[in-house]
């Protein structure tokens, strides 16, 4: 077959320049290597962020007792763990893995081109990102320790060292976040330009796979929203270091200004990480249900609508923060309305399953659990977006459980769906299916056992960022203590279960069963390239003849019709 001949051609191609280990893996401009750099850095930081969660959850369940592998958690340590858990998981796990890693890996392969249009910018993007991660980790080891003023870093607490008592940590935190944004701006330029300019011949805008579209829309959202926050970060560093008073009310500044700048970025940011995860789920779902994506264009329109609306909802984080209370009415309208495009997206996904031939493989299990759990995250958001109800729920564990029911499906479940789905392409080998499923079931059950009790605790009035609830007699009842212990034990089980994944991942990457180019009989272009693709991806640049999801087309023998096959 043509494939076999092409494979030989690829082998020849792969040999004509030998590169040293460092040059190949640390100084590469190859988009696949940069994907791995982002992916593995993200995974290491996820482990760090998970360990932080372990330490502070143990403190909450067993206040004052020494936590194994950590020691006694002091109030200061509790605050800095909570702060940096949030920061790390959003900025150094969700962002690099979902946008940078999958964007880097999938965009050139799915568009049928050999690399990003700006490969050196791409390399610089990761290097700046790595620097930002090092700066953040370093903040734990400076005098005074890491910043502990919550991941939202509201001034005056974050602006004045005599309030936060972490003179160096809070500055390093802001600098790390700003550097991280620089890295993703460079990545975003690459993703958008590559998608607009380097598609395979014949690939029209409506033939672009959904995940690529989603990463492009997310990159646009990120680039548009991040400017105000970078400006805010600069002002905050000036307040900290130079003694300016942008956020200092004693000198004519306004602390609420930071909240506007932060959330003007912070809320679109939710959709920046959500959309790529949605895209991954769409890809996986179509492959394993052998179905065309239901109403491709409507999915795109809902993504655009969500993106545009997301710029008009930020103040729902500030309903009770002392902004003009009349503003809350406007933001209630926009916030509740954002449920319309997102609900429609979920309807589309459920409709796609109709009439399918669904096989619950490991990636499909992850993708389906994304829908099942994200639905709960979505509907609980309405309680918080409706100003009247938010008066009670603001800053309770209900908020915490809500956004973990959105961010966990996004950052962990979406990532797992993507990693398990494209694993054969990345490594040319199959992930062990049995252990993949064991890992899935333990993780997903434990995840629900962690956060369902937190919804209940939040409804009972338990508020956030408190290192020991024994100080609050109304929150110290036995049933609340039991729920905290239950959530913590579930968390420990979930964290331990990740070792199954790590071992399975490493073992399968080297010893797994070898697979061919297209183990799932999928239609999109990345499955045309060899597994794993060599430098330059394709032996012969593909031409595109149709949309990305032509599964089970009537009148054809095979149930898939790849994009690059003429007829």
């Amino acid at each position, binding site marked *: 077959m043509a494939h076999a001949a092409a494979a030989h051609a690829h082998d020849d191609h792969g040999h004509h320049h030998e590169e040293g280990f460092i040059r190949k893996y640390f100084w590469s401009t190859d988009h696949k290597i940069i994907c791995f750099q982002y992916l593995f850095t993200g995974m290491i930081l996820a482990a760090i962020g998970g360990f932080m969660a372990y330490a502070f959850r143990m403190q909450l369940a067993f206040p004052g007792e020494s936590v194994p592998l950590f020691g006694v958690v002091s109030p200061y340590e509790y605050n800095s763990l909570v702060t940096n858990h949030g920061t790390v998981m959003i900025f150094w796990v969700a962002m690099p893995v979902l946008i940078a890693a999958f964007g880097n890996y999938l965009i050139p392969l799915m568009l049928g081109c050999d690399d990003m249009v700006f490969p050196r910018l791409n390399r610089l993007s990761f290097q700046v990102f790595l620097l930002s991660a090092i700066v953040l980790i370093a903040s734990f080891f400076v005098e005074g320790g890491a910043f502990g003023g919550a991941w939202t870093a509201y001034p005056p607490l974050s602006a004045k060292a005599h309030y936060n008592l972490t003179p160096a940590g809070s500055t390093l935190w802001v600098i790390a976040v700003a550097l991280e944004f620089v890295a993703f701006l460079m990545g975003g330029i690459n993703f958008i330009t590559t998608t607009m300019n380097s598609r395979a011949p014949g690939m029209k805008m409506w033939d672009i796979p959904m995940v690529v579209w989603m990463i492009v829309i997310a990159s646009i959202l990120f680039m548009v929203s991040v400017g105000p926050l970078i400006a805010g970060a600069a002002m905050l560093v000036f307040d900290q270091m130079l003694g300016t008073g942008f956020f200092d009310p004693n000198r004519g500044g306004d602390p609420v200004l930071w909240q506007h700048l932060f959330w003007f970025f912070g809320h679109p940011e939710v959709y920046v990480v959500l959309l790529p995860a949605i895209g991954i789920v769409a890809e996986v779902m179509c492959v394993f249900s052998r179905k065309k994506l239901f109403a491709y264009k409507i999915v795109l329109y809902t993504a655009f609508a969500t993106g545009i609306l997301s710029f008009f909802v930020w103040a729902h984080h500030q309903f009770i923060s002392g902004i003009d209370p009349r503003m809350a009415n406007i933001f209630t309208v926009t916030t509740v309305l954002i449920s319309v495009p997102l609900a429609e997206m979920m309807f589309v996904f459920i409709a796609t399953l109709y009439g399918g031939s669904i096989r619950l493989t490991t990636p499909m299990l992850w993708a389906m659990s994304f829908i099942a759990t994200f639905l709960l995250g979505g509907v609980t958001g309405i309680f918080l977006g409706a100003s009247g109800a938010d008066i009670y729920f603001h*800053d309770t564990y209900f908020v915490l459980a809500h956004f973990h029911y959105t961010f966990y499906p996004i950052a962990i479940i979406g990532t797992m769906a993507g990693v398990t789905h494209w694993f054969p392409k990345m490594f040319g080998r199959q992930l062990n299916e049995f252990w993949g499923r064991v890992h899935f079931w333990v993780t997903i059950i434990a995840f629900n056992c962690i956060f369902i009790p937190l919804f209940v605790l939040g409804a009972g009035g338990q508020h956030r960022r408190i290192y020991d609830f024994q100080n609050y007699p109304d929150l110290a009842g036995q049933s609340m203590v039991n729920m905290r212990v239950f959530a913590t034990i579930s968390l420990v089980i979930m964290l331990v279960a990740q070792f199954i994944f790590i071992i399975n991942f490493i073992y399968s990457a080297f010893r797994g069963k070898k697979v061919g180019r297209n183990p799932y009989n999928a239609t999109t272009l990345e499955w045309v390239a060899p597994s794993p693709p060599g430098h330059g991806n394709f032996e012969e640049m593909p031409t595109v003849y149709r949309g990305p999801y032509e599964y089970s087309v009537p009148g054809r023998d095979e149930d898939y019709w790849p994009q690059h096959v003429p007829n």
Partner: protein
Amino acid sequence: MVNYYIEALSTYAEDVDNIINLIFVFAGFWFILCEIIFFGFLWKFRYKEGEKAQYITGEEKHEKKWISIPHFLVLVCDVFIIIGAVQVWVDVKLTLPPPDATVRVVAQQWAWTFVQPGPDGELDTPDDITTADHLFIEENKVYHYELVSRDVLHDFSVPVFRLKQDALPGRVIKGWFEANGKGESGTCRADVDFGCEDPANCPEAEGKTGCYDIQCAEMCGIGHGIMSARIHIHSADEHRAWQAKNSKTPLAANQ
């Protein structure tokens, strides 16, 4: 749904609970409907040997209606939720009913100071009663609060009242509440509420009810976790007695 876990003791607490319940019904309906259909599809359309999936583009009108009709129904639900939420918001945060008394709430790292009017009922007179970490109020009276912060952001949160408001340095934020009862669950604790070292020997705490948590619900630094306070809801008699006992310059002395 919230009042199953925590009592509602202010006049607007019930309104807040009602909008929460309304959302609970709507959101719960859509959530359960979606999950049932979702799992139903997963089961019904599972892989079977020799059966091919259907080819549905979702671009045809009769197909699109399956998502466009629910889409409009969601919109209708949203309108109800928005109207309800805005009504509650206007009642709680945008309206200030005429006060019977005013209290000043001062937040700082990491303690609360409450300035309460003495027997004359006026704030900023010599008989004011200033307390730390305990707020004493009378039931069935409209209170205004003046919320200020001395340093960073704090948040004055009384869960049983469904009251929550950030304190901002440099600003005085006004709001209101009216306790409509002492509730049933708020048995006062000798150690927490009356500072008795020995709970067995604390006559003032005996039989006292109406004590609840006040929280600081905004990250305010290292001591955020200990920035708790207690609210004491008094009956009219109790409040008069408390004022008489604690006011440094009782009315009689002024005359």
